[in-house]
């Protein structure tokens, strides 16, 4: 057991950091509830870092690290499906890749910008390329861009089955775990910076024990979610369920505390807090949510 990053992983993550640093300008809040950082998304794709999980030298754990780092930023890009599912389960699919679970008529995050959609159901997994006219806009409530498919049955009919649907499911769970832990970490860092600077009652908010303990508790949950996702990267589907369920389960308490401590500033769209918390709030229910993953985990652990 060795839980440090390999030299290759560290080098790849410094590439990711450099891309994020160069692209930091366009992340400024624009007063919109949902957003998409198209230039950053394109830069990540062009760099090749999103393909790392498909190479033996890197593998899915590297994909998890990339997703967590990118999701710590307030920029909304399609990284989880592209860095974790696509390289191993549907490498021929173009990206950005939207993931549509269950009812194909549902609104789905990233569909407005996606060039392909991955259908996940109890029956299996398949993907379908998309053209701009294939989607109908919906109001983006959860920070992500969202759309519905105009003709979901037609898309399903022309979809290509994934060779290993069980792998696609496992990686989709892993993607949820990685993305959720990443956005929660980013939100926490933003709030920690805020309460360290913001003074009320003559001293920084962050000196009050009531805030310190709750933020420390949030940090514990997020750290556990991060490491469960990393452990699940090379693990079983049960480990992926556990990682996804734990991260989604953490969202309620963490998102609540982050908003409480950001106060009224976090209610405005002039501050990016919603870029983390409203991604996390949608991720809570992804692929069935924590309750389903915990039930499935228990059923598999104790058949």
């Amino acid at each position, binding site marked *: *057991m*060795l*839980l*440090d*990053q*390999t030299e290759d*992983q560290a080098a790849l993550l410094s590439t990711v950091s450099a891309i994020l640093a160069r692209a930091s300008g366009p992340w400024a809040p624009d007063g919109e509830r949902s957003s998409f950082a198209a230039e950053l998304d394109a830069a990540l794709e062009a760099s090749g870092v999103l393909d790392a999980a498909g190479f033996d030298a890197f593998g899915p*754990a590297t994909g998890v690290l990339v997703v967590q780092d990118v999701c710590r930023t307030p920029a909304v890009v399609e990284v989880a499906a592209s860095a974790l599912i696509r390289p191993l389960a549907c490498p021929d699919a173009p990206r950005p890749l939207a993931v549509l679970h269950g009812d194909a008529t549902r609104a789905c995050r990233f569909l407005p910008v996606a060039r392909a959609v991955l259908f996940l159901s109890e029956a299996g997994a398949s993907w379908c390329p998309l053209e701009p006219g294939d989607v109908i806009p919906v109001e983006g409530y959860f920070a992500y861009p969202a759309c519905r498919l105009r003709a979901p049955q037609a898309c399903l009919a022309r979809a290509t089955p994934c060779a290993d649907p069980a792998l696609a499911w496992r990686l989709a769970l892993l993607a949820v775990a990685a993305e959720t832990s990443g956005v929660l970490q980013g939100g*926490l860092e933003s709030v*920690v910076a805020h*309460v*360290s600077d913001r003074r009320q009652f003559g*001293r*920084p908010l*962050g*000196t*009050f*024990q009531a*805030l*310190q*303990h709750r*933020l*420390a*508790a949030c*940090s*514990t949950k997020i*750290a*556990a*979610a991060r*490491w*469960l996702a*990393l*452990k699940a990267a*090379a*693990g079983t589907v049960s480990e992926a*369920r*556990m990682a996804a*369920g*734990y991260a989604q*389960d953490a969202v309620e308490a963490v998102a609540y505390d982050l908003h409480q401590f950001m106060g009224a500033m976090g209610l405005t769209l002039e501050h990016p807090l919603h870029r983390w918390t409203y991604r996390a709030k949608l991720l809570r229910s992804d692929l069935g949510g*924590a*309750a389903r*993953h*915990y*039930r*499935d*985990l*228990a*059923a598999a*652990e*104790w058949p």
Partner: protein
Amino acid sequence: MNFEWTERDKAFRAEVVDFLARELPPDWAAIARHGPGSKEQTEFSLGFCAKLAAAGLLVPHWPQEHGGRGGSVWEHFILGEEMWAAGEPRGPQYMNVNWIGPTILRFGTPEQRERYVPDITAGCAIWCQGFSEPSAGSDLASLRTRAERDGDGFIINGSKVWTSYAGLADHCFLLARTSGQRKDGICIFLLSMATPGITVRPIPSLVGNGDLHEVFFQDVRIPASAMLGEEGKAWSLITYALANERVGIARYALSARALAAMVERLKADGSWRDDIVRHRAGQALAACEAARVLVYRVVDQRARGLPPNAESSLTRVAVAAADHAVANFALDFLPDAFADDSIHLLKPHHERAIAAGIASGATEIQLGIVATDHLDLPRS
């Protein structure tokens, strides 16, 4: 980044598991129901640890010249995981092998090592730690027990409280103050519990009768050679000794074992078909595994020679949360099992879960450390 066990680690775990299967007696469940701090389990540890020692499994992580195998940091934790999962048959002697022995080996005089270490490595030494006092619980640096110079020795006066194992202990790892305030002026003394002037009074408790005690020191005379390390400079030694305690007890392993036993009961009575029961079982299991992976993170840092940091405190919070998740699962779905004590390790698990967020540094202390030393929040 690799979460795989080495072949050596796997072989070591198998050796420990085989030993437990072979050496735990048929009435182990009846002994373990009293809990690791009980009189019954403390007495049991004397025979059990002697067998562990004979098998080379009591202090495998210690240097060979002191009775160990020179095993890895990971082997030390594998040993702790399997022992705790079985209900900790080493009783109080886990302290000897985790931190009392290593602290004596590192800071003790040759005479102290010669006097105390052989009994520890033979598995026949019961120690208690004389740390907490009525006015010094979480704030250990406020301790008041005095050690006054008297010729070639010291006179100890004061009292300790909530002291585990004191009723049967041979020796005490005692903190007392010779001078100064707060962290300055504190000394460690290694002394026999049979020294005249020591009185032990058991305190009835929720964590099992016979576990907690008051210990009174009235004009207890000890030689100067009983001091471990330099006079008044014990705080750094305590920090060294307890760095391991933050994650040294693999409570999550017992929690996971108790949870599995509860699930078997729920399957037998048909409750397992309930979605809510399975949801909560999965949630409790995830809490245990969250604690486990964070502990592994800390162990990995130690194995790589990195200095201790606030991740130990963060991990302690997760370990306590896992204990509580499993304990609450039992209360919600199997309250009757407490009445007839019919599920192996359920009662001792529940009793220890109450203490999980208090012993070895309260959760709130750990949260404060995480806030300032991990999140870098400003200090008040």
